[in-house]
């Protein structure tokens, strides 16, 4: 029987290893990372505001909203929230919706930031310079920025593909910009106000890198480069998102049609946009740097400011520069997003006060403790000493689940919600169920007349199937719920699925090995009446003996012999019983 012991010990060693690795990783995370020993709490427990937004296209829009657009919207909201200084905001997409979770009681301004929609604008660059604020305001010098400070001309825009540059009516540029009759590229736009704003602008500060409310489209404005590497003064808006049809990115080809090894962003404009763009490019192509650049401003930040060398007609432009595949794709996505006539509509808004959250967590934990206690009491009554195996298994399952949740909240940012807590409590019952299925199986085998060792062996093989099948169904339910449902349901499905997996682990690596080991102890092997596995209580004296006969309380041959011996020498029999282990069930032929 060394085999049984080895098997059991190996399983228990594995379990120990898993727990050590789990908590070891968590400890490493706590010491060296930003993990914590307690799981992160979701808004309904920690308090805070949750806003669900749905993107809504303007009527008659032909575009569709795809995942890239949603990601872009999330990215923009995240930049805005980060810039506003709110820590630990969580922004995610669920299906077609965007869920923004803000901790605490955020100000109304912060909440409004989330809802405000992002605008794409095209403005001619007038001045560009170093991102740091200029301390000495020198009005005359700023009109002619030092060329060294201009980080610009690394990106250029040129006609895409076959679109041949034709010198078109660039003279009409002035007529096309009626704003006060001034050329949008004119340095006259730089008023003292604008200059002061430009001087003060600090593009190394996070709040200036996102969510900046764009200035009046008809006037000049200042903005930072999205990476905070430069700042610009720009003329009035000449085109906006509605003029862009779409944008794509891909490898760059030269005029001979061979790959250059670089990447480009292809901008496709609408008919109106193409006309406006031809005017703009025709006007600015001959200016000196940086006035030959036009800035694309998304959400108040310059996402690209390519220089133009030819007039671009036909509505197809290609932006080239030091793009990597990723940066080209990002810019294309940003432009495409800016072209969407999309607004974000608030679907639901929820503010949970911190006191309510704390209260609910506390009451939830109390409910869990009561539930656990009831299960423990019931299994001790039902299974006596075996009940302690249930308790031990539940404790182990609890420890693993807690560790996993703490670890997951560090690794994947999982947050425990009230629904999740409910899932954990419900799981107590489901986990204990699998032990019951197993124990009852073993009892069945004992009833059929097997020895405890054989009953555990046999019972396990059959219970295993049942436990795996039922757990598989629970996991299936959890996965379906998690994938399809929204909001709180997911938190519940997550913990339910997690605890079901932990249940399988514990049954295989703890409950069964422990029972195998315990089956070797005389207390259980001989079926002490408090062991919960007493064959007498399990009716081994009323057994089905095959061929339709039931043997009820009929003494076995050995018992009859013992009884006969007892009549002859009652004293001897009495001593024999006394010296015997108490655990020996009466009527058992153990010798």
């Amino acid at each position, binding site marked *: 029987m060394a085999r049984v012991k080895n098997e059991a010990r190996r399983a228990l060693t594995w379990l120990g290893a898993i727990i050590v690795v789990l908590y070891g990783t968590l400890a490493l995370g706590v010491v060296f990372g930003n993990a914590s020993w307690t799981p992160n709490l979701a808004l309904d427990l920690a308090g805070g505001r949750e806003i669900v937004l749905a993107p809504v296209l303007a009527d008659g829009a032909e575009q569709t909203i795809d995942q890239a657009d949603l990601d872009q919207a999330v990215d923009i909201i995240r930049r805005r929230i980060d810039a506003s200084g709110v820590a630990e905001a969580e922004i995610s997409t669920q299906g077609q919706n965007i869920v923004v979770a803000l901790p605490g009681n955020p100000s109304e301004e912060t909440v409004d930031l989330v809802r405000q929609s992002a605008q794409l604008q095209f403005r001619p660059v007038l001045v560009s310079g170093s991102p740091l604020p200029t301390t000495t305001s020198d009005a005359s010098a700023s009109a002619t920025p030092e060329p060294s400070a201009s980080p610009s001309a690394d990106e250029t825009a040129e006609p895409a593909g076959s679109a041949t540059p034709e010198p078109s009516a660039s003279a009409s540029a002035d007529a096309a910009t009626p704003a006060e009759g001034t050329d949008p590229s004119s340095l006259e736009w730089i008023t003292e106000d604008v200059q002061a704003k430009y001087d003060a602008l600090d593009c190394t500060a996070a709040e200036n890198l996102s969510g900046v409310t764009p200035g009046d489209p008809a006037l000049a404005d200042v903005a930072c480069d999205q990476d905070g590497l430069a700042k610009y003064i720009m003329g009035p808006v000449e085109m906006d998102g509605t003029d862009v049809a779409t944008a794509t990115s891909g490898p760059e080809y030269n005029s001979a049609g061979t790959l250059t090894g670089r990447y480009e962003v292809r901008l496709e404009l609408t008919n109106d946009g193409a006309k406006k763009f031809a005017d703009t490019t025709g006007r600015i192509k001959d200016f000196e740097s940086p006035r030959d650049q036009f800035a694309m401003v998304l959400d108040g930040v310059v996402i690209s400011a390519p220089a133009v060398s030819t007039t671009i007609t036909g509505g197809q432009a290609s932006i080239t520069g030091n793009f990597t595949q990723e940066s080209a794709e990002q810019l294309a996505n940003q432009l495409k997003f800016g072209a969407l006539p999309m607004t974000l509509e608030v679907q639901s808004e*929820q503010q949970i*006060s911190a006191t309510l959250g704390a209260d609910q967590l506390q009451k939830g934990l109390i409910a869990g403790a009561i539930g656990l206690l009831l299960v423990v009491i*019931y299994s001790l*009554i039902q299974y006596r000493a075996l009940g302690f195996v249930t308790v031990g298994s539940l404790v182990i399952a609890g420890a693993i689940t807690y560790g996993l949740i703490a670890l997951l909240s560090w690794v994947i940012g999982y947050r425990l919600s009230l629904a999740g807590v*409910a899932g954990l409590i419900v799981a*107590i019952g*489901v986990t204990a169920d699998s032990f019951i299925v197993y124990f009852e199986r073993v009892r069945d085998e004992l009833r059929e007349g097997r020895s405890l060792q054989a009953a555990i062996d046999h019972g396990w093989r059959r219970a295993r199937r049942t436990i795996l099948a039922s757990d598989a169904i629970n996991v299936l339910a959890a996965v379906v719920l998690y994938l399809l449902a929204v909001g*709180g349901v997911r938190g519940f499905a997550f913990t339910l699925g997690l605890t079901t997996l932990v249940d399988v682990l514990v049954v295989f690596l703890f409950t069964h090995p422990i029972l195998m080991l315990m089956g070797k102890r005389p207390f259980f092997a001989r079926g002490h009446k408090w062991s919960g596995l007493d064959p007498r209580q399990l009716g081994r004296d009323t*057994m089905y003996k095959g061929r339709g006969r039931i043997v009820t309380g009929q003494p076995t041959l050995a018992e009859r012999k013992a009884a006969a011996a007892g009549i002859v020498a009652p004293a001897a029999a009495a001593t024999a019983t006394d010296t015997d282990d108490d655990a020996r069930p009466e009527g058992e032929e*153990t010798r």
Partner: protein
Amino acid sequence: MKLNLAEWGNKLHSGEKTYPIVAQRKRWFIVSGVLVALSLVALFTKGLNAGIDFVGGTEFRVTETSITEPAEAQAVIEELAPDATARVTILGDNDVRIQIGVVDIETGREITSALAEAYDVPEDQVSFTQIGPTWGASVGKAAVQSLIVFLVLVGIVMSLYFRAWRMAVAALVALAHDLIITVGVYALIGFEVTPASVIGFLTILGYSLYDTVVVFDKIRENTQHLTSQHRYTYDELANLGLNQTLVRSINTSVVALLPVSAILFIGSFLLGAGTLKDISLALFVGMAVGTYSSIFVATPVEVALRDYEPKIVEHTRQVLALRASGETDVAISDTGDVRVGAVNRGSHQGAAAQPKRKKRKA
């Protein structure tokens, strides 16, 4: 009590005591049929009391206030949102919940401040939830979608696991039965249905199947060598399996219901309405119905379906013919009931099954 339950279990296991659940299946079908019909009637006449999460609306919740007068809230709502009818409930000892229809965000903010003032608490102790009608509809749609996907998947998994479509069908029938009755109870009593209740409904599905799988596993084991013996019919062996798992069903149900009752108790009496109460109420009703259905619906339906299978019909005919001829070796009681026992032949259990000699005989 313990001893009695164990003894009862022993008798059920050996077949000494049997409840003729399968034989009396018509009776249980009628009971279930009536319950399902009542539930459907309640569902279609009264309908469900859908929470604001599904129909849209606004809910405010003032926590830890010393003033628990609904009138204060009524006054605030009347002033700021005169068109809305407010439903004010006092939850627990010191929480007030106010539910009104859809209002715009700005009004919501004003009401929040006004409520904080009226109930003399800081503004951050006022929680609110605003749900747009479209969002509510999409939440409901998602719930129905996951229900359908889950049912289809479960049908496939069960068919694969039992390699018998009749068992899958029976399990799904039991599932539908549980779901309809639970929803019916909700409609009849008028409990509010929230996303949390939907979580509860969906979990019931998993739980109901869990119970059914345990019973079906035993039945399958009992009927594995059905055609190689002619003592018992399929009906009788299925009924034996059902009785043998009765103690297990009761134990698992009690153990599963205990934590749920704990949440329900805490949720209802200490917290008032909320996620905990909604989930546990649905679970409590559903689990109770689920236990009933795994015993009285799933197996009888499975047997009823099986009885149409030619192989089973033929086997049953043979068994009964043998019994009529008196050549069968089954035990038949005085009342004419057949004593159904284990059908699996005994086998040698190996040396491990033999009792160990610990000491030399004195």
